[in-house]
């Protein structure tokens, strides 16, 4: 009988145990994470600002917002790689006509932009709840976040024309109910400008950390915004008016940067693209890259990993290949000036072509050319075998953002990158923005010395010489002299300015958006296709539709997710 009692107790015990601990047993807390309430301190708010900056070197957003969307759409570069299907997401972007509204790459750009913006907005929301007493740096940090938000909105604006605008005051519910047409084109520019204006008013001229935006970065970005805004477009993307009030703002803002005395041009154009000069005199705002920083691959510049050729020490991917048209654009005439109308009549492709023609020295800072030393290293000579698919993309290679395998910044992880920074705003851009504004204001004479300053610096061939003093190519470049080698009218000044921008920023993220701003995209790109496809047959089928392809389509998936609230861009996508 006793045994039986024991047996019952043995049964009851576990049952009671299980019944007693119900609720607490199921209360499992997440590990390695924090709750929102824990973030409301000055230290953590500051950390949220850091996290917002961190989106700048993010693979996803960076790659998607940088050179690919400009260079390979503008006639400057081919997509490149192993063939047309390699980096396949960019194929339709290069060919323009095949691009459809459900394109995955385009959808990725859109999302990446808003991921970055949401980091800014979430940090702003926390900072708004703190006081200046609690956090003395609060206003500066708010200004930095608004600068970053302005940056991302600017990129989205020039890619999509009508991105949806969101700020830190909006709940998810508000965002779900906001259309991309809530604001007009001009209102959108003004909203972006507001963020930069806040920076001009609240940021210090100098920051303790070189990666942070300062007052001049905000001024330069505001100038850029106003410059784009000045070219007023109709809904078919024709430029209908150039707003002189905006242009004057551009001039004033550029002057603010120029007169600060903080910035200047490097003596050598190549220093902009060579490790060792990060965060110095020509750089106004840059993406900071790092290596050996405790992450697996390092926060290196992989935005340009495609640009490296198949050279020993590189090995991948020979993408973003300079076009024949771009190379030809560096030709100069007997006066050392660009050949505006005839540059593309004959190709520079064989090594002797770079000796029989005269060229702008910036060519050898921009393009890897067979038999020429690559990136100023006389022992690292560009070989034909470095090209990956010459039958499709020819033999040239991108050079600007590549670093030598011997550079301390260089890192090969199977793909190639470096810790060399990438400039978002450079002093030469500020100078040329000012020049552009002056020309459109009819003050082309004031613009002349600015353009000549750029060309004078470009003439420096210190890094482009063999040991015997001969140069890689036959360089000839001179300044414009009114009445001597050019008739410096407003129209000619405009052509010169546009050409200067192409050469100075070749392969960077400027060209396509410049063309759209000037209202020249369709004709320029279609002319390029017409001539280039006789040399690169894969371009058969490439076509740019005016009034449509100036901007990306609003991603189809986002239109669905917005339940049709978003309006598609014009051009029957």
């Amino acid at each position: 009988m006793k045994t039986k009692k024991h047996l019952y107790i043995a049964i009851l015990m576990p049952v009671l145990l299980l019944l007693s601990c119900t609720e607490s047993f199921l209360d499992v807390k997440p590990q390695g994470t924090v709750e929102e309430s824990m973030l409301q301190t000055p230290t953590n708010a500051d950390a949220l600002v850091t996290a917002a900056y961190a989106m700048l070197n993010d693979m996803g957003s960076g790659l998607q917002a940088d050179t690919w969307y400009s260079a390979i759409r503008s006639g400057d570069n081919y997509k490149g790689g192993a063939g047309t299907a390699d980096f396949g997401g960019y194929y339709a972007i290069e060919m323009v006509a095949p691009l459809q509204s459900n394109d995955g790459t385009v959808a990725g750009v859109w999302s990446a932009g808003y991921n970055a913006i949401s980091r800014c907005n979430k940090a702003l929301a926390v900072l708004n709840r703190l006081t200046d007493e609690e956090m003395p740096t609060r206003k500066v940090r708010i200004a930095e976040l608004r600068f970053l938000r302005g940056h991302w909105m600017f990129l989205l604006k020039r890619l999509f024309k009508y991105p949806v605008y969101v700020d830190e005051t909006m709940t998810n519910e508000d965002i779900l109910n906001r259309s991309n047409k809530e604001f007009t084109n001009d209102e959108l520019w003004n909203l972006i400008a507001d963020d930069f204006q806040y920076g001009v008013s609240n940021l210090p001229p100098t920051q303790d950390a070189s990666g942070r935006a300062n007052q001049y970065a905000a001024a330069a970005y505001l100038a850029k915004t106003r410059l784009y805004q000045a070219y007023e477009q109709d809904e078919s993307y024709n430029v209908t008016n150039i707003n002189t009030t905006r242009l004057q703002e551009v001039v004033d803002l550029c002057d603010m940067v120029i007169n600060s005395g903080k910035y200047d041009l490097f003596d050598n154009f190549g220093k902009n693209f060579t490790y060792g000069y990060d965060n110095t005199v020509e750089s106004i705002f840059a993406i900071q890259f790092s290596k050996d920083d405790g992450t697996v691959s390092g926060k290196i510049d992989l935005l340009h990993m495609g640009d490296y050729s198949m050279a020993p020490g590189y090995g991948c991917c020979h993408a973003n290949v300079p076009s024949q048209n771009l190379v030809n654009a560096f030709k100069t005439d007997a006066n050392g000036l660009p050949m505006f109308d005839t540059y593309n009549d004959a190709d520079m492709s064989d090594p002797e072509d770079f000796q029989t023609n005269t060229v702008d020295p910036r060519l050898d800072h921009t393009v890897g050319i067979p038999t020429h030393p690559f990136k100023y290293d006389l022992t690292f000579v560009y070989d034909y075998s470095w090209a990956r698919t010459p039958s499709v993309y020819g033999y040239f290679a991108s050079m600007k953002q590549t670093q030598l395998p011997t550079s301390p910044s260089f890192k090969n992880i199977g793909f190639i990158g470096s810790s060399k920074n990438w400039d978002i705003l450079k002093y030469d851009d500020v100078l040329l923005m000012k020049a552009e504004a002056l020309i459109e204001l009819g003050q082309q004479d004031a613009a002349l010395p600015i353009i000549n300053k750029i060309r004078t610096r470009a003439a420096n061939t210190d890094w482009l010489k063999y040991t015997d003093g001969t140069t890689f190519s036959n360089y000839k470049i001179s300044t414009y002299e009114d009445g001597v080698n050019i008739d410096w009218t407003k129209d000619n000044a405009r052509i010169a300015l546009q050409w200067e921008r192409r050469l100075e920023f070749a392969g960077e993220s400027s060209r396509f958006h410049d063309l759209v701003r000037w209202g020249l995209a369709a004709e320029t790109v279609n002319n390029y296709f017409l001539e280039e496809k006789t040399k690169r047959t894969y371009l058969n089928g490439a076509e740019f539709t005016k009034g449509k392809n100036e901007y990306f389509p609003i991603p189809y998936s986002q239109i669905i997710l917005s339940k049709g609230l978003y309006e598609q861009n014009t051009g029957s996508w």
Partner: protein
Amino acid sequence: MKKKCKTIKRLLGGVMILLGIMNGQLILAQQINITGKVTHDQTYEALAGATVAEKGTSNGTLTDAGGGYSLTVKDANSILVFSFVGMESKEVVVGGQKVINVSMKETISVLNEVIVTGYQTQRRADLTGSVSVANIAEAKDIPTSNILKAVQGKVAGLYVTGDGSPNQTTTVNVRGVNTLGNTNPLYIIDGTPTTDARLFQSLDPSTIESFQILKDASAASIYGSRASNGVIIVTTKSGKGGFRVDFKTSLTVQEHIRKYDLQNTDEYGKMLWRAGVNDGIDPNLNPFYIYTWHMEGDVPVLDDMQTKEFINNDPLLPVSDTDWPNEVFKTGIISSSTLAISGGTDRSNSLIDVSYYSNEGMVLETAFKQLSLRLNNSINFLNKKIKIGENFQLLGSQEVPSPKDNAANIYHICNYIPPVLPVYKTDGTWAGPSGAGFSDRANPVQMAEVCQYNRNNNSRVFGNLFAEITPIKNLVFKTSFGIEAGLYAQKVISPLWKSGFVTGGDVNKLDLMDTKTMNWTWTNTLNYQLTKGKSRAMFLIGTEAINNSSTYNSVHKEKFAINDDPNFYYVSAGTGNVSAQGTGTGNRLLSYFGKADYIFADKYIVSGTLRYDGSSRFGENNRFGLFPAGSVGWVLSEENFMKKIEFISYTKLRAGYGVVGNQEIGDYSRFQLWEPNYQGISPNWFTQLFGLYQGGTAYDLFGVDQGTLPSGFRLKQSANPDLRWESTSELNLGIDISLWKQRITGSFDYFSRETKDILTTPPSLAAMGEGATMTVNGATMENKGWELVLGYKDTKGKFSYSITGNFSHFADKITYLPETVIANYPGNLEKTIIGQSRTAQFGYIYDGLFQNQEEVNAHATQPGKGIGRIRFKDLNKDGMINVLDQDWLGTLNPKLIYGLTGDFTYKDLTLSIFFRGVYGALVQDRARLEFGLLGYVNGSNKFSSLLDAWTPQNTDSDIPMVSYANINQEDRNSDFTLVNGSYLKLQSVQLSYNLPKSFLNSIKLQSARIYVLGDNLILWFDKKGPKAFSGPDPETPYTNLTGYPKPIGVSFGLEIQL
């Protein structure tokens, strides 16, 4: 040797007797003393531990190691009852006998087969739900370490797919796909649940006693919240019968025979020439070939083709003709041995099983080894009132995973890399892609060497301790504590390597990734059985608590001074950049459940189940879910009016309805989570390979380029406090039938299920930004299908045979999706996935090739269209090919899955033949895009068939014109690559021979069996039709892209019992 075995036998037997005596309460009596021996009726083996009892009294004893017993009974009228586990019990009237020898018969009746149905066992005859039993005896010789692979195609309703890699990874669906998320079934191993497929797949097949699948909701609902994908129950063997020693060994030889038909150097050259002239590019612009050719009118003619002496003028790199797959594949060898020692008495039983499995894969360097030890023991006390025991498996395995280069696995590269490249340079070093003409894939043979030190080590202990208490007759309380503790450790050593222009980076690296799991389950049940007149009833109530936790830690270290010595690659030996990651996760479940069965006259069966489950994965509002089920059975053949129909031996009708759940989402899906993320996240496999992380929170604000960076927080996900269980309700109707004295047996089940509140994590509107995604209860799916099993068996003298077939069909349909989720699935604004299968394919319609310029001009605007290119249909006739010209193209689900087994036995010789296949399936022929079109990726080898591609002179071809460019985007989703995936395989043929008794006696063996088995022998599929699959095996359509090809194997095996 023989003597030694006998000694062990005696020793073990002695222990068992001792245990028996210690606990037995021997009753002394007065009248008649009976002695005798109990043996097996077929093997004549002595049965130790059999119960011998005097009927109607508590008087009884157990047989000794030799099967002998001695018992004193009341008088001559006493009846002796002999019983033994797994045997039919026998009653003998004492009469005048003093010596009663008994031979016992194994329980064979299918209807009396005992089925484990969750927390209890039931006779098959009493079942009302849909339960399948896999025949383990039939599967035990398949040379695999994965039990699921052994039963593939043998069980109706169980759909197993997998590749041929040495680690034998498989996926399994019970009755198809019922949800949008995780489709893994719940596994129950000796009563302990797990959802870890990897753990289940590491169970040693030789230790498995029974394998059951609870398919429908009424059968599975006792497992409530986790049963919606079906439940697979496995019971491991226990010692029974007398003491026995079993030894099993087999050797398997595997070959990769079904290969892609790739180009050799001659064909590759002709194809490149063709591409050149087609594209208007000078064909001589290539590093390998010199062509002489001319135009005849507008027809290009190749006069002569010479290979260049060297690739890109490298004097060490001659243009060669390498058969790369042949360099990478070798003969695979599998060896497997098991030693099992077991024994049981009525009081206790024990089993020790040691197994070793080794698979030297068919791909260079790949290998898988597994050593497992199983210990199953139980013992009774207090007149069987208490039984305690344990079932444990200790397991260690080591895998050398498939070699990879930077981005692709070795089966991919070996098909991909052009034949012109030699394996070695003329100086004996590795050759690699060099200069123009190559893609960035490395030499696969070299990669096998580079990756040879990578290891995946899996160490696990799992099993349970249990106690059964029977305080009063027919009332059993059972408490069981199960644990699963494991360490899955991956080691990747990346030495410095260079394969032509491809490298693994400029520093050597070590990556260690450890996943530790610690799970426990505590289950308490109370079972009560009641028999009164014609009524029988069974009641079960129980509670269960489950705690799962796991942690993941990884270390990445760079710069090792010794590059080639794997013994040097330890974290402390590295001197470069270091990076460490780690996370933890866990969840808990708490459940209460009950079940009642009522059976009247073995004719009418009613069963009901209720389970109440709470999960830590759900918010407090919806933490608990209730899962009810009910089913009825009617044994028609017991009715008098049926008994007249003589040929019907048995018929049962079954009907069941039940609700089961699913909670397979992230452990913390209901929370809003902010996290520091120094490293960033790796969005996909490709970026993972390179360590390309994005969305991190660290930034070099100070521009110092190295060291520890400032870092912040990011929003990872948004909260959903209302998250609740996903639930599946299912109706199952079934009939079991057997005719002509069980010569024909069969069953048919029809099911219809609806899964509601499916847990999904839909994409959020991008403008809401990072971390806006949340898991929601959204979608609804339907799944309907049927299963048919038919068997025929007969014996004619010494010849007996049986033929069994199983056939199953299922079709799923998404019936509701929240608007926000729709965008996550294929479809466009006009055609959504609603009403389609989860695996429905969406895309453009292939409409032949453009034959001439008139056809091109007449067609709608289709960027890239041209002569010899694919014409896609303008579905909406708007003169433009765009997103709206896509349509539903069919599903990847087969219409019919079937298996056919035939067993033929003559005397001691048995021949087994097993066919399996699927019918009415479509597969995505990815290989056709990669290797069947040139433009898809340049610098890779292609199918030989590309030489037969369309040209103006060869217009019958359906292969688009060869081109370097893919300007027509021919790799878009379309039915061009959606092809017939039906196949039939002669999966195995086995001939086995039981050595004759007379011979065995002479060598003192109880039994011995030898066999030879051929695996994956013959494959039939459509190779010629317009929708023919272009690869070698439609069962693994992605073989050379992601999976390990299925080998053809021959095994030789020996099985002996000492």
